[in-house]
């Protein structure tokens, strides 16, 4: 069986939700992953992928870091038959906008329904959570689990209902109604309201929650809610089915691809060196988890770009690596790309140091924003590198 090659964007501007995609695809049995950052996207190292995932985060920061080149490459990737899956911030990214740098990504004719201009000013004043977007602002009427229903364009014979959490993703109106695969159908007991219920209903109900926009040989999947969230199995299944369906349709295209050499060649690490690397990762992940666990109890949060980061998110990164360490340890041969050894050991060690520093800063009521920025950058670097090591090693084990 041929697995699609999936790129999960893990560059600047993403939040931890890309880790949920890693869990989701790994559990479904996919094993061919890369984790491109903005540099790799700008260098067009995504052209060998079958699927490119852009998860949640800060849309402006993602757009800014990808820049014009990144935008051009994503467009070309989809035109050539690639499948783009954008969740939350990743869904906003290819929609039309007049505001730079989002205007570099005007790919699909899908409109946002949670825009302030659609509502009388007086009603929208009660909105607690919003962000500037062009001449208007995007507001988030609700958070947490909402209920979705598929349309006849997904399956004309039956409708499927499932829940998924909304953390700032869009409601959508598509130029062509047949693009809408699922709409927002209702709220759940867990839904928290940030506007009046009336506005929330007007903004979301009946509007697109999952939109598939055909784009030459490929397509864009835009997901308003986080269907990849680990607590929502049916929503997870929707993504997996979509990938299987789309890549199945594109198998001819996949088989024709020969350009698999975009990502650098890997080398093998065995014996004492391999053991040392694993021990070093274990040591630093443990040191970091211990501080991160104690940060859970501190009343602090950081505004980085346009997103609020809580200390708890640090643990999401660390746990994503920690829970895979045992599987990695079972492999006698580790597969590493050039420079990965140093990158992992350096980033892992730095994270421990920075986490201990931030704990002391918070305890001493000192400003900790700069350290937090550095920690989240390092966590990105480490987790990308770790997953490169992990999936390359596991694939090697499977193939032997």
């Amino acid at each position, binding site marked *: 069986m041929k697995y699609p090659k999936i790129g999960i964007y893990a560059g600047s501007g993403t939040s931890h939700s890309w880790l949920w995609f890693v869990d989701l695809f790994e559990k479904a049995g996919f094993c061919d992953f890369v984790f491109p950052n903005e540099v790799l996207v700008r260098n067009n190292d995504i052209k060998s992928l079958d699927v490119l995932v852009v998860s949640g985060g800060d849309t402006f920061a993602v757009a800014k870091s990808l820049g014009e080149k990144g935008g051009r490459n994503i467009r070309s990737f989809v035109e050539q038959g690639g499948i783009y899956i954008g969740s939350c911030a990743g869904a906003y990214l290819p929609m039309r906008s007049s505001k730079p740098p989002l205007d570099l990504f005007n790919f699909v004719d899908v409109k946002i329904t949670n825009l302030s201009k659609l509502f009388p000013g007086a009603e929208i004043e009660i909105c607690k959570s919003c962000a500037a977007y062009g001449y208007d602002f995007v507001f988030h009427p609700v958070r947490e689990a909402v209920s979705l229903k598929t349309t006849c364009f997904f399956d004309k014979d039956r409708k499927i209902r499932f829940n998924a959490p909304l953390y700032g993703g869009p409601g959508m109106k598509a130029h062509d109604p047949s693009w809408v695969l699922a709409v927002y159908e209702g709220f759940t007991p867990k839904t928290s309201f940030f506007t009046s219920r009336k506005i929330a209903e007007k903004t979301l109900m009946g509007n697109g929650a999952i939109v598939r926009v055909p784009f030459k040989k490929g397509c864009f999947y835009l997901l308003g809610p986080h269907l990849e969230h680990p607590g929502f199995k049916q929503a997870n299944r929707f993504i997996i089915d979509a990938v299987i369906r789309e890549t199945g349709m594109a198998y001819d295209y996949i088989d024709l691809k020969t350009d698999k050499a975009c990502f650098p060649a890997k080398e093998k690490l065995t014996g004492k060196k391999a053991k040392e690397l694993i*021990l070093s990762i*274990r*040591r630093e*992940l*443990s*040191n970091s*988890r*211990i*501080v991160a*666990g*104690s940060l859970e109890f501190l009343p602090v949060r950081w505004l980085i770009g346009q997103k609020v980061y809580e200390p708890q998110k640090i643990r999401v990164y660390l746990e994503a690596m920690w829970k895979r360490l045992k599987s990695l340890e079972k492999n006698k041969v580790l597969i590493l790309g050039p420079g990965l050894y140093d990158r992992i050991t350096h980033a892992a060690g730095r994270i421990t140091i920075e*986490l*201990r520093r931030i*704990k*002391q800063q918070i305890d001493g009521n000192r400003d900790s924003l700069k350290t937090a920025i550095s920690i989240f950058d390092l966590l990105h670097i480490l987790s990308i590198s770790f997953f490169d090591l992990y999936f390359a090693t596991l694939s090697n084990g499977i193939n032997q």
Partner: protein
Amino acid sequence: MEYLSTDKILIIDLNAAEVEEEDLDETLVKEKIGGIGMTTYLYDKYKEEDPIVIGTGLLTGTTYPASASGQITAKSPVTGKVCHCPVIYKLGVEIKYAGFDYIVVKGRSESPVYLWIHDGVADISDAADLWGKDVWEATDELRKFVGDDLLQTMLIGPAGENGSDYAQVCYNHWNSPDRFGFGKLFGSRNLKGFAFRGMGLIEVAEPEDYVERSLEILKEVKENKFLGKKGLAPILTALGEEGVDEWIDPVTHRHSADYFTPYASNTALFLDEDPGLLEESKKEEPGVLVSDLYALLGFKNSGFSAKDAGSALKACAKYGIDPFAVAKLSGKTTLEEITASFDSISGEITIPGRGIFSPWCPAGPVFNDFGLAGEDGTIAWWERRQAVSMIFGIQPMFSLMCPELTEENMLELASLGTDIELTRETLDAVVDTILG
């Protein structure tokens, strides 16, 4: 060893500054069960190198009531015998969850070190900055460095560094059941001590049955009337001491329990703060946590007020010296004299029976009579009870109070938890080996 275990034994060679791991073989568990059954075996295995062996019981850190305890097994520099010191509070549990069932420390380091044990990783770390610091300072500094206030420590203070006979290995900020001068032993190896933190997961073979039986046993335990009491004073009163309540009440703050232990046997005394205060004290050091019945009694009998006794206990905890030995052997009656005498404490303290279990625990039953009669029988019962408690990891003071924690149900839970059939014959054989 898959269940109720981390499956790992850690061997640390201080001479070579090297650490090594061994798997915990299931056949060894079938023979030695765990706790001091295993630490005694490991001590004998590395006898030539006079090791310090740290361990936890087979049930430690589970839902079995009072499964709180760990152990230090080593040769006492005071008595020359291989002795077993209980590890109490929440420290025993932390050792297991930090990733090792047993830790063997061999040799002597060239310079001061501490051992940082976390999530299955063991680091021999430089203790130059900690050497010379008292137990409180060193614990606070390690917690600050590691960035976690829940870090659990097992450290020596100046008494251990100076080679005092009654130097004690302390747990976090507090005194411990160490009556064997293990603090001196640590000091002689240039070992400031251990820091433990773990966020592991312990698998159990039959989890539903294990938890169900644990709850049934807990319900039986809770029928016992002594559980309406709390703290050290009721224990001393039950042992026949008079006037303890009146003496200690004016400085008593709250009572706390060791991990999952139904009786709260640790009493906090507020010395520099209103003992009735419910809010968090704004003072950095409002008092001291006391777990040592006989040290407290020793100061009381020397004519100390409870507040001065608390101050003396706090000074002992900081200096890392056995407060019972200080109360009994110093012959001093004021706080100033006591603290000035720390480095010159000498003499003998009586350890009942074979002298291998800490007299920190009363040498007989507490609150319940366990159907015992006659002193000879009592000491034999006490030694077996201590041995069994420290094989399974049961808080050894609580096991003297609670007849509902039987050898049968300990064996039953150990079998349910491990999927290994453990019999009374095996337990008898292990106890016989320990008692020599």
